[in-house]
């Protein structure tokens, strides 16, 4: 383990033509954490991951992984980083055995024991063509290639989006077992929030090319509350807390807030909110009668 953050971005941005795919992204992902990168399609998740592994070059700011630049220190850094791209691309005509051989030839730090143990554990025949395997099995092969590098940081782009519920669970279980064994840092992007609370301890919410919220999931869940009360102007609440979402009926006001203190007006009823509700609020979902404010928000925290 190093004392550096696993991934650190400062003012990071990427522009394609006139459109920013990621803008003003500053964040620090602690070593040993399992971080979910959440946001709708097109929010900038893939862009952020590709910048982190040096597959693309920032238009602004910088990103470092394990204290090194993925562009200038690629040779020493990349063997320490595992990356599984979206749709886990593999050579479909290769057998499982060919695929492992490719991994061995391409990676200086390849651990054949790890690779073979995983293939055996998964019950995959070495002679079978990769293209004939199920989606879940292909995802596991792609994960095996990344894990056999013995990476310190593992980046997974939408790893479970295309998988059925059983394959999702098995895939995430494999990742978690690897974390338990090695203490590696994992960042996985997802547009599906369910399941993330089980496997992740940190969260980054991306929307419209910007980070909306970054932090430990426990703290995020503990600090957000839903307030309901008689219809009021939320200005008094806003002086103390961050109002993420507000909605009103004729008589009632409902606010989703990030609490910055403990004094609540006794007019408000307090309710706990789950992670999914919080994420949706930051992504701009306004609730039944609401107006989302997330779209106009700058990065929080």
């Amino acid at each position, binding site marked *: 383990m190093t004392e550096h953050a696993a991934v650190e971005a400062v003012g990071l941005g990427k522009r394609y033509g006139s459109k920013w795919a990621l803008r003003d992204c500053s964040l620090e992902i602690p070593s040993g954490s399992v971080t979910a990168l959440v946001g709708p399609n097109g929010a900038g998740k893939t862009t952020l991951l590709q910048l982190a592994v040096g597959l693309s070059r920032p238009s602004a700011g910088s990103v470092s992984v394990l204290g090194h630049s993925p562009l200038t220190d690629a040779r020493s850094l990349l063997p320490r980083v595992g990356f599984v791209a979206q749709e886990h691309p593999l050579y479909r005509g290769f057998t499982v055995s060919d695929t492992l051989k490719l991994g061995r030839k391409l990676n200086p730090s390849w651990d054949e024991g790890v690779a073979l143990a995983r293939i055996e554990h998964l019950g995959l025949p070495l002679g079978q063509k990769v293209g004939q395997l199920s989606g879940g099995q292909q995802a596991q092969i792609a994960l095996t290639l990344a894990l056999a590098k013995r990476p310190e940081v593992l980046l997974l782009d939408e790893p479970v989006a295309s998988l059925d519920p059983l394959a999702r669970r098995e895939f995430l279980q494999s990742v978690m077992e690897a974390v338990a064994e090695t203490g590696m840092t994992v960042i996985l992007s997802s547009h599906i929030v369910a399941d993330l609370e*089980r*496997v992740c301890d940190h969260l980054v919410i991306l929307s419209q090319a910007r980070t909306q919220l970054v932090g430990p999931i*426990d703290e995020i869940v503990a600090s957000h509350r839903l307030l309901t009360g008689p219809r009021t102007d939320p200005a008094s609440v806003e002086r103390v807390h961050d109002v993420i979402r507000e909605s009103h009926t004729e008589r009632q006001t409902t606010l989703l807030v990030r*609490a910055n203190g403990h004094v609540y007006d006794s007019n408000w009823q307090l309710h706990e909110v789950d992670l999914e509700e919080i994420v949706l609020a930051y992504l701009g979902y306004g609730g039944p009668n609401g107006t989302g404010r997330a779209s106009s928000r700058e990065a929080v925290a």
Partner: protein
Amino acid sequence: MIEFHLDARSGVPTYLQLVQQVRQAVRLGILRPGDQLPTVKEVVSALAINPNTVLKAYRELDLAGLVEGRRGVGTFVSSELTPSPPDGVKELRSALQRWVGRARAAGLDDENMAALFADTVRPPAASRAA
């Protein structure tokens, strides 16, 4: 040895569910002093959850003095949960009964009382956020 299970819809954080299940097992005598808890790896494999969550639960149990982590060996139950003293409970119950009487006299029905009780027991949001 015990097996953990998770209720995704309970709203209770995962680590706290693990803590509660250990406490419950100790209270019921399913786990006794000296018994080993499942290893982090075993819990992770069984539930497909983050190992940091299991570590957090075990750390909290350790801090509470209920279990003891032995480096490289595992985590063991170190003490029994002493049930709350019966005298104290008796007194608290009669105080509560008097309170319920006063609440009824003030016109609160059962649902009102339950809401008031839950609201009072719940710690303020911000103190937990800290």
